C-alpha cells in the first residue's frame, strides 16, 4: 500500500499539486485521471522521488520514503517498476538488453533465468521477435510495450505506469490494460496507472483519483464514476459523443 498525505508541489508560480492525500492498495489497479497538464505525471514522479515535493509524506507500506537517505531510497526503489510517459528506453541497448538491465542490476538471477524472464515478459506484451531491435527501430506503441516489459521484469512490489496505452491501437490497448490488471492481482502489486483512456477506466479501475486544479477532486471506482454527479468528472468522462450515447 502506498499512502500519500498532504502533498504540495509548485514550479515557480505554477501550483501543480495542492494538498493531495490518498492511498493506493495492493492487488488493486489504481488510476490517476485528469486533463492534460493537471499534474498526473508530476504526482507519480513525486511519489518515487524523481521530483522533490514542497511538502507532504509518502509511505510505502509504512516506510517513510521521503525521509530516507539516498542509499535507503535506492534500496527501496529496487522494489519499484516505472513506465515513463515517453518510455525512456536506453538508446544504446537492444530491446532484450533493456529488459535484462534491471534484472542485472536488481536480481541475482542466473543468465538462463534472465533469458527466460525476458522471453516471458516479451511474450506477455505481445512482442515475441523484437529481441535484437534497438529502440530507434520500434514504433511508439512498441516502445511503450517494451517499457512495460522492462518495468515488470524484476517482479516489482510497486508498479507505476504513465499512460501505458497512449499510442496503442484499441485491441493492443485492452491487452495491455488486462496484463497490468492481471499481474497486479496475481502478484499482489500496488499498481498506479496514469491514463486518460476511458476504456481503461471502465475496464480496470479498481480505484480512480480525478486530479483537477492540483487537487484530489474526486475519488471512487469504475462503477461509481458512471453515477457521479460531480460536474468536472462528468465533463471529463462524457467528453466524447460515444460516452454520451452510452449514458443515454
Amino acid at each position: 500500500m502506498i499512502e500519500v498525505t498532504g502533498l504540495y508541489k509548485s514550479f515557480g508560480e505554477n501550483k501543480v499539486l495542492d494538498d493531495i492525500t490518498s492511498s493506493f492498495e495492493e492487488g488493486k489497479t489504481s488510476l490517476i485521471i485528469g486533463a492534460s497538464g493537471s499534474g498526473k505525471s508530476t504526482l507519480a514522479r513525486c511519489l518515487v522521488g524523481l521530483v522533490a515535493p514542497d511538502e507532504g509524506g509518502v509511505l510505502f507500506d509504512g516506510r517513510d520514503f521521503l525521509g530516507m537517505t539516498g542509499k535507503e531510497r535506492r534500496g527501496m526503489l529496487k522494489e519499484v517498476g516505472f513506465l515513463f510517459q515517453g518510455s525512456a528506453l536506453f538508446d544504446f541497448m537492444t530491446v532484450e538488453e533493456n529488459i535484462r538491465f534491471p534484472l542485472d542490476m536488481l536480481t541475482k538471477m542466473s543468465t538462463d533465468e534472465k533469458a527466460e524472464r525476458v522471453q516471458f515478459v516479451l511474450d506477455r506484451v505481445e512482442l515475441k521477435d523484437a529481441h535484437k531491435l534497438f529502440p530507434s527501430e520500434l514504433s511508439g506503441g512498441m516502445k511503450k510495450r517494451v517499457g512495460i516489459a522492462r518495468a515488470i521484469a524484476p517482479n516489482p512490489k510497486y508498479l507505476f505506469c504513465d499512460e501505458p496505452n497512449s499510442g496503442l491501437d484499441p485491441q493492443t490497448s485492452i491487452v495491455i490494460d488486462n496484463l497490468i490488471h492481471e499481474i497486479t492481482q496475481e502478484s499482489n502489486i500496488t499498481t498506479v496507472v496514469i491514463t486518460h483512456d476511458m476504456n481503461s477506466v471502465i475496464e480496470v479501475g479498481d480505484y480512480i483519483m480525478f486530479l483537477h486544479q492540483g487537487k484530489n477532486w474526486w475519488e471512487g471506482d469504475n462503477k461509481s464514476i458512471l453515477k457521479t454527479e460531480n460536474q468536472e468528472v462528468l465533463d471529463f468522462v462524457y467528453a466524447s459523443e460515444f460516452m454520451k450515447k452510452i449514458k443515454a
Partner: protein
Amino acid sequence: MASFLYHLGRYALLIWRVFSKPEKVSIYRKRLFDEMVTLGLDSLGIIMIISLFMGAVITIQTSANIDSALIPAYTIGFTARQSTILEFSPTIMALILAGKIGSNIASEIGLMRVTEQIDALEIMGVNSGSYLILPKILAAVVINPFLVVISMFVSIGGGYMIAQFTDIVSVPDYVYGIQFDFRPFHVNYALIKSVIFAFIFTSIPAYQGYYASGSALEVGKASTRGVVFSSIVILIANYVITQLVLI
C-alpha cells in the same frame, strides 16, 4: 559569481557521486572497456592526421624563423621536438578532443536526461552519475596518455618527412636535433597534463549534459557549453601546471 559558485558546487557534488562506490562492478567493467575502445579507436585517426601536419608545420616555421648562421641547424629538430612534447601533443590534442569527445559526451548524456533515461536509471536504484560518467572519465584518463605519446611520435615523424623530402633541414641535422638534450622529465610532464586534461574534457561536458533540461535545443546548448568551458579550463590548467612544474 553566485552562479559560478553554484555550478562549481554542483559539479563537485556530481563528481563526488560519480566516484562513489559502484553497485555492480561487473557491469562497469564492460562499459569501461567499451568506452576505451570507442575513445581510443575513434580518436586515433584525427590525432594522427593533425599531429603529422603539426610536426611538419612546426619544422618549417622554425627554420623559416631562424636565418642566422650563428644558430646551429640542429636547433630546428630540437625546437620541433620540444614544442611537440611540451605543448602541442598534450595541450592542442586535449583541445581537439574537448571538441570531439566533449561534445559527444555532453549530447549523449543530455539526450538521456531529456528523454528520462537518467530517471529510469535512478528508478532502478542505479547511481546514474556513476554508471554513465565514471566509465567515460576513466577511459579517457587511461587512453589519453597513449594518444598523446602517439601524437608525439607522429608529429616528430612529420618533421622528419620535411627533412627527408625538402631541403629545409638535412636529415642528420634533424635527427641530431630531436635527440639533443633530451629530458625524460618533459615527457612525464606531458603525461601528467594528458591525464588532467582528459579528466577535464570528459567531466565538464558530462556535467553539462547531466544537468541539461527541457528539449533537444537545450542539449545542443549544453554540448556547446561543454566544449567551450572544458577548453577554457584546459588552458587555465595548462598555465597553472606549467607554472608549478616547469619553473
